[in-house]
């Protein structure tokens, strides 16, 4: 258990580091863009795709290096939010709300599941 918590702590650090690195990559490529705009772009990517996808990857794959987890999780995140946003739109919830609802729901569900499974 202690080892797992240590691992998660390490991954949180990597996650923050990845945010900084991602921002630097965009800042280098789009050096004429303002830093605020770059950070907002990266924040959006993380909130919408990276966080939901990475959290689900923890539930399914125990042993993945963080970089691989980050890349595959973010890729999966686009589907995790893209498809439900389509269905929620059909049910009357506009896409502008899905932006906040979906990642928040995923965070609650996936973190809840992680704690539940850990306790079990």
């Amino acid at each position: 258990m202690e080892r797992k918590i240590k691992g998660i702590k390490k991954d949180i650090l990597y996650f923050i580091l990845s945010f900084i690195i991602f921002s630097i990559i965009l800042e280098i490529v789009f050096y004429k863009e303002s830093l605020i705009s770059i950070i907002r772009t990266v924040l959006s990517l993380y909130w919408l795709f990276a966080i939901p996808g990475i959290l689900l990857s923890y539930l399914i794959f125990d042993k993945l290096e963080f970089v691989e987890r980050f890349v595959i999780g973010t890729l999966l995140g686009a589907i995790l939010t893209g498809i439900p946003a389509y269905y929620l739109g059909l049910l009357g919830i506009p896409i502008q709300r899905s932006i906040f609802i979906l990642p928040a729901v995923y965070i609650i569900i996936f973190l809840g599941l992680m704690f539940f499974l850990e306790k079990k």
Partner: protein
Amino acid sequence: MVEIIKLEINRILEILFLIIISIILLWAGLGNVWNHKISHDYPVGYLASDAFQHQTRAESIKDAGNYRNEAFYIAKGFRDVIGYYPPVLYHAGDMFSILSGLEIYDGVFLFLFLFTILGMLIMYFIIKTFNKNAAILAMPLTIFIFATNTSIAFTWGHWPAVLGNVFLIGALWSLAKLDSRWGFVFFGIFTAGVMMTHTSETVFLFLFLFLYLMAKLLLKNFNLKELIEIGKGTVLALVISFYYLIIFRFTWMVAQPYSFSVSPTWVANPGFYLAKLWNFELFNTVSGDHFPLLFLIFILIGLVIAILSFIKTRSIVPAIGIGMLILGFTNYIGFDWRAFQLRFFWPVYLSVLFGIGLYYLIKLVVKKFNILISLSISLLILILIVLNSNFLPANTSMMDPYHWDALMWLSKNSEENAKLYFLYGDIYFQDALLRNSKREHYLVGRDDYINALNNNTIKRYYMTKLPGDGGTMLPYRKGFLSFGYFAKDYNSDYFFGPRDLCSFNYYIFDKYVSSNKELVSNQYNLEIREKMLNLGMQEVHSNQFVSILKNPKPGEDCIGA
């Protein structure tokens, strides 16, 4: 201790390499053409109608908040046409654009490039399970997706096919992880992603699975558990996609059913081919429609090694390279241009073979291989490709600030039910861009216009096109499993036929037309405009290139005929 330090250094070097690769790929793919800015005043990097098709659909979903129906200005004025395009690209791209504060035309395009590069990195991790050095050496080949004809996947608007291939790579990655207890969940979600992004890629995914499992069966290595996990993932994907697949069944499968068609080339599109053996080129090709010969040699060597390796290890990694090479040739067995859309990703799929081939060749010479050697060679090759390639110049686009200004003016200032008439303009025949007016719009028939111009006559009735997306016959829902089609309900004259020039609310004139050799005068537009102004129309908006007139009395004589 020394071993641990060495491991950590190798890890850091690998991460640094991936960061540098990502920067080079994004710089070459998008940074350059976007002039190193994310926000633009108009769409940049858009070079054909389909790019605007996807941009305007994403824009319309943002406006409506949902994709229940196609916007009327996309669906030729009809308001009940069901949203029939695979929805993931638009929804994920829209959410990203809205939250990041970017215009849809910037946000969706950026989203597409970022996810393509993520797909390339996933391919790296797939190859890494086979051999880390081969994975590193594979990466330079991926840049050909931006340096050859395959770049039209982005600029000409094959966006759903691009994202579909990215998710297909995700599905391939998860195939290698099916031994995990819930591994099928990832495979199922990625497969659903493929189905709901560009459904035809699903066929390639399952064709690959068929070839892969059959090969394993022949090699007496068939694994029933693997098949069961794939089955579980497929069921999950079908459950997720069920609602959309019904729409797909009654739209795309009705309007464009599979028909056996062999086509060695992609008609009206710059296709991508494996090689032109008579062209000996090292790091780039002039035509951009094939791999340089040097790279082809490594790919072919890799192919031989991959076949031997698959026979020996049954690993999925070499199977991906072999399988995607074979599937890229399915245009010869009836898959027509869909195979060429798969070839957009050959630089990524075949990087497996390239990496393996290069690795084993270098290993013949260098006995003590380490990560530093593969990193150095990989970066060197990548730099040589970049230096020898022609990427799109900064700010390349079909759109320009003046036409964009006119379209935006129309979308914000004309009445919602206004009917717009576009006279001849050089860019207007890539007509999906006209949808940015967000109004029902009509476009003068090109041939009729040129004939009238050459006869020096101004007429009341011109052949006129009602532009819009009619690819699935404008479907509308009658019941859950029952659909009608406006394209069948209406006569073809309704969509392209003679129309009274004076019956519209707004007229859009280009002040300069130039690119068409058949146009003997660029004054014709201005002559029509003068007549209309003399008969009471008002110029409501104008800029250096475009003039917009408003018709106060639609239906009455407007040209003195």
